């Protein structure tokens, strides 16, 4: 497996997981904005990152239930499921952190 194959496969896989990831990210933002303990704009803290990371267990479960055959393509490219999930978790957490930093910078 080359890096370019992995990145291409990761991009394909991420697109299938992204809707769930976006929903959970928006949920975290919504709770921070209008929840019982408003904290808006959100500061990027370890607790926030851990909260974001914890959502991946639910995303993984939903993905396994809704697309039980999704891995065959990637296995044919010599990529194990854990390698896909590791990439997705890193990429999505970085995107989420970037969004938090951006909001913090532009909102009053």
């Amino acid at each position, binding site marked *: 497996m080359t890096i370019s194959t992995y990145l291409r496969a990761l991009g394909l896989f991420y697109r299938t997981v992204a809707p769930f990831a976006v929903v959970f990210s928006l949920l975290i933002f919504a709770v921070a904005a209008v929840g019982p303990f408003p904290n808006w704009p959100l500061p990027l803290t370890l607790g926030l990152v851990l909260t974001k990371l914890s959502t991946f267990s639910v995303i993984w479960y939903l993905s396994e239930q809704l697309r039980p*055959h999704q*891995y*065959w393509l990637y*296995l044919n490219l010599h990529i*194990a499921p854990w390698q896909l999930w590791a990439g997705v978790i890193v990429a999505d957490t970085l995107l989420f952190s970037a969004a938090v930093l951006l909001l913090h910078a532009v909102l009053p």
Partner: protein
Amino acid sequence: MSAASSHVLEADGIQLAFGERRILSDVYLRVQTGQVVGLLGRNGCGKSTLLQTVFGGRHLPDASVRVNGRRVVPAYRQPGLLNYLPQVPLLPERLTVAEAARMFGVNAQQALDGFPDLSAQLSRRIGELSGGTTRLVQVLLLLHANTQFSLFDEPFSGVMPVHVETLADLFQQAKARKGILLTDHRYAEVLPLCDVVYLLQNGRLEQLPSDPVPALRDRGYLAS
């Protein structure tokens, strides 16, 4: 096509049971370069499970898969060793045929060469193709990929007869450089194609004689 060195894929110790029902019982399977090996059996007898276990996509505790005597579990992690076509769709609908070929390192034009109507569809998305055409494209890409072995679960499913004949010829050509293991209920097409035929029945895998039809009748796979 350059002459390929010979490789032997062996799998054994494969056991699977659902409660009291034994699906696979200490199966031994062998495929080598230059062979098309057919795997026949009734619905639900464990053919797909066996292919998936050999490929490594399904983990069974005692399963041993070896290539040239070297253990390769899970086999799919070894680049260039083998690929596998499952019964379910393999390629995402949004991918174009050309992009899919690129992912597998296959020259798309060359892979679709024997099918002039397919060559014009390189830029189309998989989701825009008919079910039979999608199946055919998937088979062709895996067949042309540079692997030592290819495993196909129902490669002829949904493919129209005129393409099945061409595809069978391509299997015969491809076996010069790779070992092929396939399972499909279209026995009329499969049997002439195969150098070795296995029948999976009651959890056991039996290698049939060179004329397998009488044995298939005796064992109830074909009507007498």
